[in-house]
């Protein structure tokens, strides 16, 4: 969309917006058609907008859709006529801004992309000139040089609603300590930007620890965001959060929602990285729940999205079993307030991984054969009727590993699954039900996969993909049930790596601290 930017001398009535979208420029206007511009080509500070007109009755639908969000014009016009949008612009409720920056570096303002590979260029039918677009966030609607972003400027009505905490379980002493520390932080959400780290081992019951803080923020009238890189986690958290906050508008946003659900009003939001990009300066409490995700990186994308989604004065909470080094360092020097939960909720130690030499497994695998050490371990597990998670470094290895297992343990039921497997849900639930004995996989599938008595092996643990935190997360699959708090974690390798050793040290340290 192009705009006509009205010069000052033509605007005696300063209440009018300076920008008129192309479809509303009168055809008989003397020069307007020649002066149509894209917002990316206008100096930003020129775009003055009227003050909010308090007497204007805004449209409910627009307010609900746009409060706390920054949306592409196309997303809104798909549901609401441009005429009505422009009326709200003229009344000060909505403002336009460019969705891209071309200087000093080509940047997508919605997703923060600056990678030249992830920009495309077309001869655009809308702005009738060469027009660059962002390829990194296409699935949210295309950001281009001529596509404006819209923000809502109507007053936020302070909510006096009393939110109920419907969760009735009890927290373990360690959980309780963390929950209280976190809740304490929520008291002063209004003093600049703050951060807090909850460093909790896998299986410590992280979600429950968050409830008191979320509850408190909601009752202060603050919208709360739980952000996570994975759709799985969003889907798993939604029913739990909905049950915990029965009279709160809890909404989950992930790819594939219908527009009617995508822009709904919410008080407690659970969202994936991409969906987060639709929110703008809205949340005072942001919880980044990376929980057992692997491979995990608090990647630049999520960081950018969180920065945009939170209000200027807000609290960002990182909940993780394996904090990135930067956070650990900041915690250690006292720059980052934090709390550690080194003990599982059932009170038992974390199983410590064992390192087992597997020889040149690549060579054996070429002939569809597994290393002897792994075969022996497998047979032992099968005799004990145990279920096994087998992690492999690359998807390409999976068929050969499956063949190898079948060749050495004939009667065993084995399935391979990877992150983008279309049958992933089915395969995981079959494993969960016990119908599959061995699950070969490249990533931790769903953190909800807490199969009682499951044993874990990492095959080719020396691969670069198995970092300390990945290995710690993988080890965290074992012994989550209070009935069976122990089990095997074996790293089968062809040469020990620093990462393996660091992972073992990490787990031992957590166990030691847990005793105190």
């Amino acid at each position, binding site marked *: 969309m192009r705009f006509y930017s009205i010069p000052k001398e033509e605007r005696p009535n300063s209440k009018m917006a300076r920008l008129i979208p192309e479809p509303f420029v009168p055809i008989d206007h003397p020069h307007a058609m020649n002066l149509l511009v894209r917002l990316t080509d206008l100096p930003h500070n020129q775009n003055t907008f009227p003050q909010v007109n308090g007497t204007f009755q805004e449209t409910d639908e627009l307010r609900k859709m746009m409060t706390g969000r920054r949306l592409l014009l196309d997303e809104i016009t798909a549901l609401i006529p441009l005429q009505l949008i422009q009326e709200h612009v003229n009344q000060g409720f909505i403002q336009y801004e460019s969705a891209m920056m071309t200087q000093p570096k080509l940047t997508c303002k919605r997703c923060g992309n600056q990678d030249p590979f992830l920009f495309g260029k077309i001869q*655009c039918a809308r702005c009738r000139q060469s027009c660059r677009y962002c390829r990194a966030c296409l699935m949210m609607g295309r950001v*281009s040089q001529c596509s404006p972003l819209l923000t809502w400027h109507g007053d936020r009505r302070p909510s006096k609603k009393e939110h109920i905490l419907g969760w009735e379980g009890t927290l373990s002493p360690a959980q309780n300590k963390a929950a209280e520390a976190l809740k304490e932080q929520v008291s002063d959400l209004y003093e600049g930007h703050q951060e807090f780290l909850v460093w909790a081992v896998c299986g410590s019951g992280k979600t429950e620890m968050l409830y008191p803080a979320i509850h408190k923020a909601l009752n202060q009238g603050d919208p709360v965001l739980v952000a996570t890189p994975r759709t799985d986690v969003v889907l798993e958290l939604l029913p739990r959060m909905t049950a915990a906050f029965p009279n709160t508008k809890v909404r989950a946003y992930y790819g594939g929602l219908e527009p009617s659900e995508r822009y709904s009003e919410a008080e407690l939001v659970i969202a994936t990285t991409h969906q987060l990009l639709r929110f703008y300066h809205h949340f005072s409490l942001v919880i980044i729940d990376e929980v057992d995700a692997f491979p995990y990186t608090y990647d630049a994308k999520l960081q950018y999205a969180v920065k945009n989604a939170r209000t200027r004065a807000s609290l960002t909470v990182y909940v993780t079993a394996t904090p990135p080094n930067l956070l650990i360092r900041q915690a250690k020097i006292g720059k980052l307030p934090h709390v550690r939960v080194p003990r599982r909720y059932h009170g038992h130690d974390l199983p410590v991984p064992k390192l087992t030499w597997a020889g040149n497994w690549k060579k054996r695998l070429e002939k569809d054969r597994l290393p002897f050490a792994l075969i022996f371990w497998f047979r032992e597990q099968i005799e004990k009727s145990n279920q096994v998670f087998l992690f492999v470094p690359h998807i390409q290895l999976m068929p050969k590993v499956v063949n190898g297992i079948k060749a050495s343990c004939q009667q065993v039921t084995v399935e391979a699954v990877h992150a983008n497997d279309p049958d992933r849900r089915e395969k995981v639930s079959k494993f969960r039900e016990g119908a599959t004995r061995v699950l070969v996989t490249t990533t931790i599938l769903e953190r909800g996969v807490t199969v009682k008595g499951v044993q874990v092996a990492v095959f080719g643990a020396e691969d670069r993909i198995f970092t300390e935190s990945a290995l710690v997360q993988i080890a965290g699959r074992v012994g989550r049930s209070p009935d069976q708090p122990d089990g095997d974690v074996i790293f089968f390798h062809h040469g020990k790596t620093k990462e393996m050793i660091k992972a073992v040290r990490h787990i031992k340290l957590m166990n030691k601290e847990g005793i105190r």
Partner: protein
Amino acid sequence: MTSWRDHLSETNRCLYCHEVFSGEVNWTWALGLSEEKLLCPACEGKLEEIKETGCDMCGRPVEQEGHEFVDSTVKRSASFVSKPQFLCRDCSRWGEEDRWKNHSLKHRALYSYNDFLQEVMATFKYRGDAEIATLFSGKLKKLAKSAGRIDVVTVIPLADDRLWERGFNQAELLAGAFRVRHLLVRTVSTEKQSKRDRRGRMAALEGAFRMSEEGERLELSGKRVLIVDDIYTTGSTLRSAASVMYEAGAVEVLAVTVARATGKLKK
């Protein structure tokens, strides 16, 4: 523009999934003997190139089993043939219509319209990732070579509202390796194709196009015209466009597309 040095580096990024892959870019590429790899091996492997066709006319792929129109024992060339002999039932039916008795519409596509290509085309057309066109534009030009002499290349135009919505005409980008003339304009905006049955679709497309000003100016008589488009489903859109050009005197109209949809997928 990236330099040749960048291309010779060890890693490339896949145009579709954006993943890094080690490109087998080597001296053959530098000497222009091989094509630059734009897709990673995983994505490349999911494309089904049409190597044999089951019909000399519409170029439907031969591989689908149990398809009533196709005699799977007959395998025809994947490139254009000058004298079509074996026709599938769809094409025979077209040939019975008066205006197609003396005209033909030979068509060839690069790939079968399988699930993966449907995703790729959706990213290209609906999500608007115009860069995807570079995957196919060069290959379409190559495919058209077997058609012999071509005098004019054109594309199916989009309706105005559709063009505004997308920002570009996907067919025009696919024809990027040709010099494109805009011979046609749309007369009526047609409803979404998939909503109609074959007869309804044909009726709707009757008179969907007329010659543009540029088309009028360009003398078509005696010319061989190539239409470039994205997907061939029933061929009715292409035939509707071709009939306008035959009326204007074209001696032959042919078509190339990226994807050949078959009955199997559209059900």
